Structures are given as C-alpha cells and as structure tokens.
C-alpha cells in the first residue's frame, strides 16, 4: 500500500511542483498582477438556502474522529452547520497531506464549488498559502498560520497553553510521586506550548515536580504510544498526560490504575475510571466569526487567537478530579481558570527559565502571539523533550 500511495503521490506531487513553478514564475515576472491578486478580497456574493456558502474542511488524519485534534475541528464543523442553518453547507476531506499534493487537492475542491477551504493541520499552512494565491476568489482559513498579506487568507488558533496549565495543576495535585509522565509526538511550537504550559501549571502546585516526557516522533502509532506510556509508568509516574491523539494511552493508564490527561476532545468513555482532565479545543467561535464576516461582506484577512476568554479552550474534568484532589487545590485551579478567563493572567509571563538554565522569558515580560506561534524552548523541569537546534 505504501509503495502504491507514494508512487501516486510522487506523480501527483510532480504535477504540483510543476504547477507551483509556473505560478512562481508568473509571480516574479509580473509584480503588479500579484499585487492585484493579494490586495483585493474575494468578490462579494449573496449566500442563502438556495445558494449556501460551501465550506470544506481538510483533515490530514484518515478519520475526523481521532479522539483529539481533528475531532475538535469536526465538532466545530457540525456546530457551524447547525448555527447557520441552511445558509452554510459544510463537508470534509480526509487523508489530505501537508505536501505539494495538497495544492492539487484544493484545486479539485475549488472546482467542485468550495467557497471556503479550512486547513486543520499546522503542516497544511504552506500548501494552503500557495493555493490561496492561486484561487483569489476563495476564502482560506488555516490553523496557526498568519497571512503574509494575502487578502483571502486568515489564521486561527486556540490557547493550548492555558488548558494544559490547568491540567498540569490537576496532575500535580493528584500525583502521589514527584514524576508526571508525558507522551509527546514532536517538539514543534504548538506541542511545546502545551507541554511547557503543563509543566508550569504542575510546578505552580509543587515546584519540585518533574515532567518526564517520551518523544514518540509520530502523531499516531498505538504500539509506540503504549510503549512510551508504559515506560514512564514503570519509572513511577502515576499521572500520564498525552499530547497526541491516541486513546490507547488512556487504556494503558487505566489498566495500571494511573490517572490520564487527554487532548482536545473529551475521550473519557475510553477509560473512565482514571480519567483526570482534558483541555478542549473549541474552534466554532473563531470559525463562526470568520464565516459571519463572509456572509455580511465584512471579511478582512486577520488572525484570531481564541484563548479561554473567548471560550476557545474549556476544561473537561473527570470524577478523579473531584474525588482525589483536595478542596484547597481545586480552589487554586478554579481561581486560575477565572484569571485566564478574565485575561488578567497569561501562561508565559517571565521569569521563565529553559532546561539549559537560560532565560526564556524575561522577568515581567509576556510572550506575544509571534512568540507563542514560534515557541522553541523547553521549560525547566521537563526531561526527555529537546528542541532541535
């Protein structure tokens, strides 16, 4: 299967590269044409039940119901469809890669009548930017990418660091030992925000607690993920947090009586007995804002950052949270959640020191959006996770 698929990708990819070269060539020979393409937003149109706005969501996973990141987008897609009634029609495509082939897939989606294309994976950013240049009449919404001046391209993001900060507080409060386990896919900015937030939250309850991470180097591989979970549990962790979409970890934890922290989507059904917490990503708010702006002909290219204040992140707590965590710690967590919601507290406010003892965030400073989107440090107290440098 791999061989055939890669062959297909290779051939389609080659076409894509050729197409991209042609576009690039056009771009350099005629700068005025490019300015026109990037300067104007798509022409306005009337959308109603007889001519609904056609929204297509591109998933990189093979199913939208992955129990994590992709499923959080699928939830949002269903909510949007409900919210806008017949005015907006949504659909999705799975197994959309983050390569040149993606541009071709977007070509097909646009040919089928898409008005809005949504890229769910961080890696889909570059091909979607290319596609946005190619299709100035189509709106593009992409997770975690800022528009480089393209009028038809907007970025969206949630605040994973806030949700994981609260989950980290709960993990430290529930832990009997000094080690919390973490199964980590890659040390990329979004994941670093998650695990750094998690560690800072845990340290706010117990400054000496350690987060012992294992990098699996893949987004999904049940064997490897279970191995990683077992490895940290055998080292004595009695809370395991996962930063990837694999429910096998939940089951492996419950089997050993170890509490687990999920990601993005509430999967407590998988292993309810030891479920502690899951930070939930809610994309419906930002997507509703952007789609509203299209329907009202008010669209501008922007970047929407949905933190707890905007309900982009909410918490799902397990029974273990209420039963195993002291009232005092529960109060601390509730207070912090309030502070995030009111906007008076931010996760990455200095002084923050990285694993090598260097200053990552200066005293009194807070990371801005660019600092978050480009995070490339690991905070002190995390082992096993390194940033390539």
């Amino acid at each position, binding site marked *: 299967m791999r061989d055939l698929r890669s062959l297909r990708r290779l051939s389609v990819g080659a076409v894509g590269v050729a197409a991209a070269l042609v576009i690039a060539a056009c771009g350099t020979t005629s700068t005025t044409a490019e300015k026109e393409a990037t300067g104007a937003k798509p022409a306005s149109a009337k959308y109603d039940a007889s001519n609904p706005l056609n929204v297509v969501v591109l998933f990189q996973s093979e199913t939208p119901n992955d129990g994590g990141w992709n499923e959080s987008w699928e939830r949002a897609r269903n909510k949007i469809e409900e919210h806008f009634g017949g005015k907006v029609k949504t659909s999705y495509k799975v197994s959309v890669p983050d390569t040149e082939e993606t541009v071709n897939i977007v070509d097909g989606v646009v040919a089928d009548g898409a008005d809005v294309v949504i890229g769910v994976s961080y890696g889909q950013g570059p091909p979607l930017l290319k596609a946005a240049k190619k299709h100035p009449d189509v709106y593009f919404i992409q997770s975690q990418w800022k528009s480089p001046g393209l009028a038809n391209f907007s970025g969206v993001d949630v605040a994973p660091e806030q949700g994981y900060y609260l989950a980290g507080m709960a993990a430290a409060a529930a832990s009997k030992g000094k080690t919390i386990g973490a199964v980590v896919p890659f040390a990329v900015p979004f994941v670093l925000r998650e695990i750094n937030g998690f560690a800072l939250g845990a340290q706010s309850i117990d400054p000496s607690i350690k987060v012992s991470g294992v990098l699996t180097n893949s987004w999904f591989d049940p*064997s490897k993920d279970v191995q*990683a979970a077992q490895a940290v549990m055998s080292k004595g962790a009695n809370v395991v947090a996962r930063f990837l979409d694999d429910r096998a970890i939940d089951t492996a934890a419950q089997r050993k009586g170890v509490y687990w922290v999920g990601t993005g989507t509430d999967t407590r059904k998988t292993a309810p007995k030891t479920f502690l917490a899951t930070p939930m990503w809610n994309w419906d708010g930002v997507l509703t804002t952007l789609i509203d702006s299209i329907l009202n002909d008010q669209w501008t290219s922007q970047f929407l950052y949905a933190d707890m204040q905007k309900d982009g992140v909410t918490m799902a707590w397990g029974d273990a949270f209420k039963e195993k965590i002291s009232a005092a710690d529960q109060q601390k967590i509730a207070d912090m959640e309030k502070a995030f919601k009111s906007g008076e507290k931010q996760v990455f406010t200095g002084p923050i020191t990285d694993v090598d003892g260097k200053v990552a965030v200066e005293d009194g400073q807070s990371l801005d959006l660019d600092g978050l989107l480009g995070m490339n440090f690991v905070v002190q107290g995390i082992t096993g996770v390194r940033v390539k440098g």
Partner: protein
Amino acid sequence: MNDGLVVQLLASAVLFGTPLLIAALGELLAERSGILNLGVEGMMLVGAVSGFLVSQRIGGAGWTALLVAVVAAGVVGGGMGLIHAFLTVTLRANQIVSGLALTIFGGAIGLSSYIGDSQHLTGQAARHQFEAINLFGLSDLPILGPVLFHHTLFVYGSWVLVAAVAYYLYRTRAGLHLRAVGEDPAAADAMGISVTGYRYVHTVAGGVFAGVAGAFYTLALSGNWSNGITAGAGWIALAMVVLAFWRPELVVVGAYLFGGIAALGPNLQARNVSLPPELFSALPYLMTIVVLVLVSSAWARGRLNAPAALGTAYMRGE
C-alpha cells in the same frame, strides 16, 4: 528489581513482539507453500476491527465474547487469505500485485476503516479485554516473572503456535509435503500431492494468523479501535519471515528482538537518556536493512532456506 530497565525492556519485547510473531508465523506457512502474501497489514487491520466489533456487540460473559471475537478475527483474516489464494493460485495472478491490493483493500483507507466508521467503533470503550494472567502463580519471580509469566493469553497462545508450526513443518507428513510444494511444485505434483490444495490451505491459514494478530491490538494492547491501529506491523512481520530464514523457531527470536528494540527508545528516554527520537523510530527498520544485507551476501544466500518456488504460480505441464 522487577521495575528495572532490563526487566521492563524484556517484558516489552515479549508483549510487543507477540503480534509480529503470530502474523509472521502465518506468513511463513503461506510462503512455505510458495505463496508470497504482501496483504498481511491489510488482513491484520481487518482482523483488528472485526475482533473489536464482535467483542463489543456480542452478549454473554467476557471470556466467551473474547473467544468468539478472536475466532471472528481469524475467520475474516482467513477469508481475505482465501481471496489472495483464489487470485494467485486459481487465476495465477501476480502475487505481489494481489497482496498489495489486499492491503489497500483492507487497510487504513479501505475496508477496516469503513467498518470502524460505519459501526462507530472509534472512541468506544472496550467492553471486554484480555487481561494479563499470572501463569502458574510465577509472576512475582525475579526477572522471569514479569518477562514471561505475566502476559495475556495471546502471548501464551503464541508460544503454543510456534511449537505447533515447528512440529507440523518438520515432523509431520503434511509438513513435508508443504515444503515440497514450496520447493518444487512440479515434483510434488508428480508425487501426487495437491499443489493447489496445499497452497489454498496455507494461504488461508496465513490469513487466519494475521487476523488473530490484528485482534491482539484491539483486544489486548490498546483496548480500542483506531484507524490504522497496526501502524505497519504487517510489513515488519513480512520482513521477519525473511530474517528468520523461513524457520518458525527463529521467528520467535526476530519478533522479540524487534519488540525489544522498539521498546528501547521510550524506556531510555523515560530514564533521561537524551538521544534523538528519530534514531529509535528508525531502529527497527535499520535493523531490517542490516540483516537483509547480511543475509543477501553470497555466503548467506546458499544457506538461506528460501522456498525455491516462492512467488511463482504453478501450472501443470509447464
């Protein structure tokens, strides 16, 4: 002592080597008859999803449900093996193409994914799971306890399978005939052995083993179904048959070696040994390449033991 790195590694080697072991044993039977089946990954996935579906839907006590689920996974895997047998033995289709087609058909964008989605299996908590059994009450023994005597029935069953396959292959008349069919089908045919019959039976058996190996993932390892849950184990099982020189007793060694190497990375990381994770991800494949290079040398080739007729269709009177 039993929480130490070495014990943890050895126990992981046995646990994570088991599905590779079962699938590779099945493929070994098929290849011994001369049929190469690259559809192992697809058959495993369909077995994994069918086993999970049955265990979720069937009523009754846990043990009966699990038993029926494993049987179902085997039957479905066997059914896919039957498709391959029909295409390659009866229709004499190219074995490589047919096997690849089987993996695509069953794989993460095919039948297994369809069954999982249409039955809403993704995200369901398992109703029944194989739990580790304290065999003969020995699981508290130092070192050997956790490594050998605290596993699920799958693991103990796989040991029985290895012994059974080895006995069958080397000590029974049918095993002798099987080897003859794989080495020289024309000669076997002349002796009155049914080449078609042997190839059908053992290709189907390979499918049954692969289906059961797939069920290990959903019924014993992860406790749920996710799309593409075997994550390439079928391909490693295929390589394992070559690495084991088509000998069941060596498949055990290879499977546990792979299981151990795969577990090495996470366990070292959890103990603060900072090494690039890419290295550990690549290790099983690197090892495959190294061993393949070694066994491909002229010296090794003479002793390789590959069935001479592997991959070729048999037509009487050719």
